[in-house]
């Protein structure tokens, strides 16, 4: 063990020399407000956007670039992610709450809906043919379903570091930490989606072309169609071409609501969507969930 072996200064007696002093010192920090933190209760969030009822908020948090957050939300909850400053990148993994072996399947999501790009009215599908979430709003239009999140090795090559505690954390490292807090391991960190950074696929070559971000602020809204565990990592996109790692604040808001009904949009957008919602209903009916 290393550290100072002599007192650093004789002048002022330490306020943390005793348990009581240390307790008072710790408690005196309460109420500190910083840019990146959760607001508890969420209903006290002072910056609820127009049209969002602050009294219905169940989650309000500002996530720094290079950090992560996670929460279990009930079916019907709307999850709103906002790129406040124009350089956030929200990587998302979804699992069925309490049954995490059912999870977001990116391949099924693009294949079943016959499209590689996320848009309003599209569904985030599980590997069990059910709807985990519906995309119900989008003012960005810059998203990606194919590139997943960043890896430690690639961030080390590009930026010199990729560990969670370093200056350019890889999304996978952050997801592993978020997953662990719900009893999940690295094998549960499957391919993810990302929001607020666009990648285009060139039709002939299949080349990935960077499309950057929309002007800030931009937001998306996802409606939970089942009880969900959401893991969110806010870090640079893996094909971001800029030489320096960069990622800014992500705002996460959630408020209560009801899931999509069988004859309601977006269950009506396609026969595939209708059958996905029918699969949700079949499952919930058998469980006796109304």
């Amino acid at each position, binding site marked *: 063990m290393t550290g100072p072996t002599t007192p650093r200064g004789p002048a002022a007696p330490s306020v943390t020399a005793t348990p009581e002093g240390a307790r008072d010192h710790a408690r005196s920090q309460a109420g500190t407000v910083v840019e990146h933190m959760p607001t508890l209760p969420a209903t006290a969030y002072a910056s609820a956007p127009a049209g969002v009822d602050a009294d219905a908020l169940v989650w309000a948090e500002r996530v720094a670039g290079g950090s992560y957050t996670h929460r279990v939300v009930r079916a019907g909850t709307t999850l709103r992610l906002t790129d406040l400053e124009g350089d956030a990148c929200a990587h998302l993994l979804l699992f069925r709450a309490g049954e995490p*072996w059912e999870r977001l*399947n*990116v*391949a*099924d999501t*693009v*294949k*079943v809906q*016959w*499209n*590689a*790009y996320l848009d309003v009215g599209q569904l985030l*599908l599980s*590997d*069990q*043919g*059910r709807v985990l979430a519906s995309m119900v709003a989008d003012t960005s239009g810059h998203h990606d379903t*194919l*590139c*997943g*999140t960043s*890896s*430690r*090795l*690639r961030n080390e090559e590009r930026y010199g570091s990729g560990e969670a505690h370093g200056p350019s954390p890889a999304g*996978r490292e952050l997801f592993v930490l978020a997953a662990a807090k719900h009893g999940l*391991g*690295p*094998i*549960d*960190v*499957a*391919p*993810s989606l990302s929001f607020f950074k666009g990648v285009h*696929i060139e*039709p002939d*070559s*299949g*080349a*990935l072309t960077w499309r950057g971000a929309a002007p800030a602020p931009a937001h998306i809204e996802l409606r939970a169609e089942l009880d969900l565990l959401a893991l969110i990592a806010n870090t640079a996109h*893996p*094909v971001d071409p800029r030489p320096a790692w960069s990622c800014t604040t992500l705002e996460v808001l959630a408020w209560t609501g009801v899931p999509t009904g069988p004859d309601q949009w977006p269950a009506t957008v396609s026969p*595939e969507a209708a*059958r*996905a919602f029918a*699969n949700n209903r079949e499952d919930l009916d058998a469980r006796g969930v109304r």
Partner: protein
Amino acid sequence: MSEPLVDVIVEARAPWSGVVPAGATLQIVDLRGNQAVDCLFYLAADTTERYSAPETMVWQGSVFLTTGSVLRTHSGRPLLTVEADEVGRHDTIGGACSKESNTLRYGHHTRHQHACVENFLAEGARWGLGKRDLVSNINWYMNVPVEESGALGIVDGLSAPGRAVILRAHEDVLTLISNCPQVNNPCNGFDPTPVRIVVGAP
């Protein structure tokens, strides 16, 4: 030439698995043409380290697999390299067919049809792998174009009888294969057929 370590015919609709040793080649032959071969790779010494479609696409800057493609794990570690390809492009976007996704894609009458996820689960279980170990896979010989609008789909194949891909392993690689049983789209020409797997000694 030394004898191949493995030279088998994988029957239509069937799975196959095996470890391809470091330095060895894995050859997959599309015997009758346009037969999708769903494929997952794991580091044999640590199966938590597995093939990653996103990581593979990001490092090569393209969504299609062909000669020169390095197949990587989610950590970026190279597992195998495509050394030869007689077709030109292969898919790693579309994932595996499942009984569950078939209900969305075609209707609930397909719920009890055999599917690639069934093959992956059955064959993976022999190596201690479960559902949580399954991720977006490779579909050799499957043609999934992406149009300017983002429209994509499994369309008629580009392969032909006897065409092959050859991969070389950088590590000892556990390979899971599902010889795709799908009969509702053109990935197998609506008629699943056998393929040949040859593992050549290092």
